């Protein structure tokens, strides 16, 4: 059942990163634990996975700085994405065309020419076409967020240095006892 306590919302301001970095291409946050702020949500603390949707992304980016980037990928380090995959090129050191991925969401740069793109900010449209992705429980301490281009290369400094972004994430914790990290604590006490 979808209950109100299963939904959480996380607003991320890149300027608030935990080291005070001014280049937003690769930053870290300490998300601690949901248990701190919502102490009655113990079962959520024990959840292995959650659904996360990138609802909103806006960044003060200059159209002139965008060259070949068609897409900005929001990648998350330190968390597993059990159901997300991406393609990668085959090479002498890589024999798999398919690989697990850590992309949380994608944002089109919408560049028209060297001076224009469709909207002033990147992802403030009302469609929110990034859907839910399954990822490990997001409230588990340090969270690394990287912005990459369509090839998975971290964005250049001209796009990210002294720039900021704002992001809204919608987080949903399903009630699935099979995926709960601690299914039945009585098992422990019965010994």
């Amino acid at each position, binding site marked *: 059942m979808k209950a109100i306590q299963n939904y959480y919302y996380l607003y991320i301001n890149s300027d608030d990163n935990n080291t005070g970095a001014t280049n937003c291409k*690769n930053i870290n946050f300490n998300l601690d634990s949901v248990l*701190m702020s919502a*102490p009655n949500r113990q079962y959520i603390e024990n959840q*292995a996975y959650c659904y996360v949707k990138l609802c909103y992304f806006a960044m003060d980016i200059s159209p002139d700085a965008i060259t070949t980037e068609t897409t900005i990928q929001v990648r998350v*380090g330190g968390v597993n994405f059990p159901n997300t*995959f991406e393609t990668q090129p085959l090479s002498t050191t890589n024999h798999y065309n398919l690989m697990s991925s850590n992309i949380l969401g994608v944002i089109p740069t919408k560049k028209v020419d060297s001076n224009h793109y469709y909207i002033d900010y990147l992802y403030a449209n009302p469609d929110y076409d990034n859907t839910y992705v399954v990822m490990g429980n997001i409230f588990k301490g340090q969270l690394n967020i*990287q912005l990459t281009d369509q090839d998975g290369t971290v964005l250049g400094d001209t796009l990210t240095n002294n720039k900021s972004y704002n992001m809204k994430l919608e987080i949903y914790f399903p009630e699935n006892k099979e995926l709960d*990290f601690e299914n039945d604590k009585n098992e422990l006490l019965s010994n």
Partner: protein
Amino acid sequence: MEDNSTTPMEMRLSEVPGMPSPEMELTYVTAIPMNGSTFTQSQEVRIGLNVPTDCFVDLKRAYLKFKLKNTGAGTCQLDPLIGGVSVIDNWRVIGGTGALLEEVIHYNAMYAAMNANKSVDTVSSIHSQTEGASTNPAVGLKINANPTDADIANTGLKALSTTNEFVVTHRPQSAFFNADRYMPLGFTQGLTYVSITLCQNETFGLISAEDAANASSFSVSEVELHLPILKPGPEFANMFRSAMSSGVPIQIHSVGIQNTQQSIPLDSSGEQTLTFSTRKRSVKSLMNVLRKNADITDKNRNSVSGFVNGGITEYNFSVGGMRIPAQRIKVNYSATTGTDKGELLSNQQLALGHYSSDLRGICSQTRTVGAKTGGVSTYLQDAENANTAIQSKCQFSLDLESYNAAFAGKNLAGQGLPLVFHCNSLATGAQDIGALLCDLYVIHDVVYVLDGMTGVITANS
């Protein structure tokens, strides 16, 4: 042939009735990643535990092997205490039906804390050979300035030139791999797999001050997990299957580690109150590890094992509103009136179960090769805000186990209040330079239960 002698301890799985000592055939399986072959920063390595039907795995004798390549432009040095294991940021074990069986966040820092509590000889010999730890690991690296080539030479860090590779062989410090019984993965549903999340490029190694302009990057390939497989004779396998199908739960005990984090902000001194979230049922001990937040993602600093003290002068924990211990553990730094190295170290050893063991040491006494005297202690460092300050190997720990047995830990699940770390800190601690990250590792009992009817393994803690 099976005889009627006693069943080995490793085969006594919970309520399964006594069985004759089975004939066991030992073979080795090399598990490889299922989701790629070459991995880079922040990516996940997924290694399926391909165990043949009706077989057990002796996970205590398993080891992980991978090739670590420096793909950066210049030379990069590996971590002084754990070498190339620094790339393992998170460690998870996922059961065949998707259930999370184990999760250790900041696995690399946990392993570094464990190695810090081994003798210099152990780290500089076996861990240097197998994982790339340094040859003089007791030397502390600078925490407020980029270590120079001379500092690095003094520490004996393992250097990887650009495009060079090092083969890391590592025994997992994992609950699932340290259980007290053989793991019956050949009797379970689905494929259990190990999920390793790699660290960021800036975390894996250290680039000297002279080469500071070089970017840091790495790749991991040829990942192998070597598993000893034990195949019992058909009589034992049938008997085990019968016991499972009769509804007898198979229970395997181990000790797991949960990570939960907090921060000490810049410039904060005096009384600190850090609340942590944990609801484990049987907590054996707590181990608090402090690092400078910015250094974790700084390619020019010791990111994984750059432990600091934060100028802590005394500490205790609050569990369910009760202070433990009631009188705080003192941490006095004074060179003239004496330090409290012994008390801090004793509590650390109690927490790790090493207390009074002559086999364990602390990786904090430097050596001067060939000299009859010399060598200094780098254990408890004062004035961490100085430019010349070096890292410590201290952890701020507490033993909570009432007696040395399974399930004898403190129950933190029934308390309405979170776990709180109380400490008092000097203004000259490392947080005078930058915010600190506190990794609290909760060492707790865990029981893996194999439901005989469904073949599903779950973890209860």
